């Protein structure tokens, strides 16, 4: 079993986390569609949004992957976009939240 990824999140925003995670699952679905159709603009927007929102919720890795995704989309790099997609998919399955 893959190792869990522990993410510490402030207790004050606990009720906002389900919505945040749901949006990341939507991002995965949108990214899959955009990759198939080579819609790099959409890939870039998804990456830009993940970059801007991840770290604020305590998910620094989401910000990091967002930066990678946005750059990959700007370069029309299908392979890198696919790698980012795989990372996010895997990340969401392994993430374990600890409220502090």
């Amino acid at each position, binding site marked *: 079993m893959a190792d869990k990824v522990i993410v510490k999140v402030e207790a004050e925003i606990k*009720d906002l986390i389900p*919505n945040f995670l749901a949006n990341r699952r939507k991002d995965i679905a949108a990214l899959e569609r955009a990759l198939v159709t080579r819609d790099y603009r959409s890939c870039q927007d998804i990456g830009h949004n993940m970059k801007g929102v991840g770290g*604020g919720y305590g998910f620094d890795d989401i910000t990091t992957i967002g930066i990678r995704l946005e750059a990959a989309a700007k370069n029309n790099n299908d392979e890198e976009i696919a790698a980012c997609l795989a990372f996010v998919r895997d990340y969401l399955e392994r993430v374990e939240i600890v409220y502090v």
Partner: protein
Amino acid sequence: MTILAPQSERAPAPLSRNPFTVLPGEILLVDDQEETRLLIARHLALAGYFVRCASSAESALQAISERKPDLVLLDVVMQGMSGLELCRHLKADSATLSIPVVLVTGLDRRSDRVSGLDAGADDFLTKPVDREELLARVASLMRLHEARAALEAARIASEVQRREHVQRTFERYVSPKLVRAILAGKYEPDELLARQERVDAVALFVDLRGFTRMSERLDSDTVVGLLNEFFSLVTEVVHRYEGTVFNMAGDSLLAGFGVPLPQPDAAERALDAAAAMQRSFGAIARRWQGRYGVTAGMGAGIDCGSVIVGNVGSPTYMCYTMIGDAVNVAARLMQVAGSGETLVTANLLQRARRHPSAARATLLEDLMLRGKSAPLMTYRIAGNDT
């Protein structure tokens, strides 16, 4: 703390650390991403701010028109009007330019910050937003905004006080039109009163004939009432012709034209004022005759020449006045004038030679006035001639 926002943008009620915290200000948060709005609004609300949310620049403008926030947190990249365009719009409007604007952006190049500064932004936050940095920047700008608002309020209060002082000071002497000009900043009020100077002016002296008899026959309340009616009339006429009331003493009044500000037609104004007073007082005198059985009239004297105007008196009592030969001569002419008559000097009539009353003035024998060494060429303007 409660976040108030349009229904579609409403965030869940936050956990407040202190339910008794006094709200430090109202923030408008503008971002087209709901999860960003939720997060930032939560941090601000927990810090005690009242937060309104808008999902677009357009809805932000609507919110601002309804109530101005103390600070705007503004996303840059949005559908429709961008954050930079909204920032420019707010900073170009005098009603909103003082509202601090913080651009919250994932664009982190130097050129993006320069664009934000050019648009008038007061500060920046880079996404992902760090809570401590967010609260520190917001608090700093709020303090600055409060300080500016306090300074502006103090400035306005001071200006209101100044205007009231000017109005109180001047409305006793000069016409309402001149008071308005002073309040509009056309003239410096302190300078007007402070300067003592020799100027060319016209002095008009008027007094109430029959006053002594009146005060013997009528009770004091009635006498005062009649005197007030006389002074109200002559003062209104002086102001109507934009003259200045310098003195009221007993039953006489001294007015000046061409002071404190030059009037090229000062002589004509004085003649018109005297004629208007004679006309109007004629009707009043008839009424007094009918009601109180007293015979009253008005005598007037007008001269022109060099006078000194300024504050004269002692340290404990001082008044703005006019002194000089023209004033003395006007007073003497007033004393000599019969009831319903206005006496003027040849100098005055020469200045107003094109005035209608000049053609109808009657030359009197040279008058030897008390205190003067040589006789004075004098003219009589009878009744309500104009």
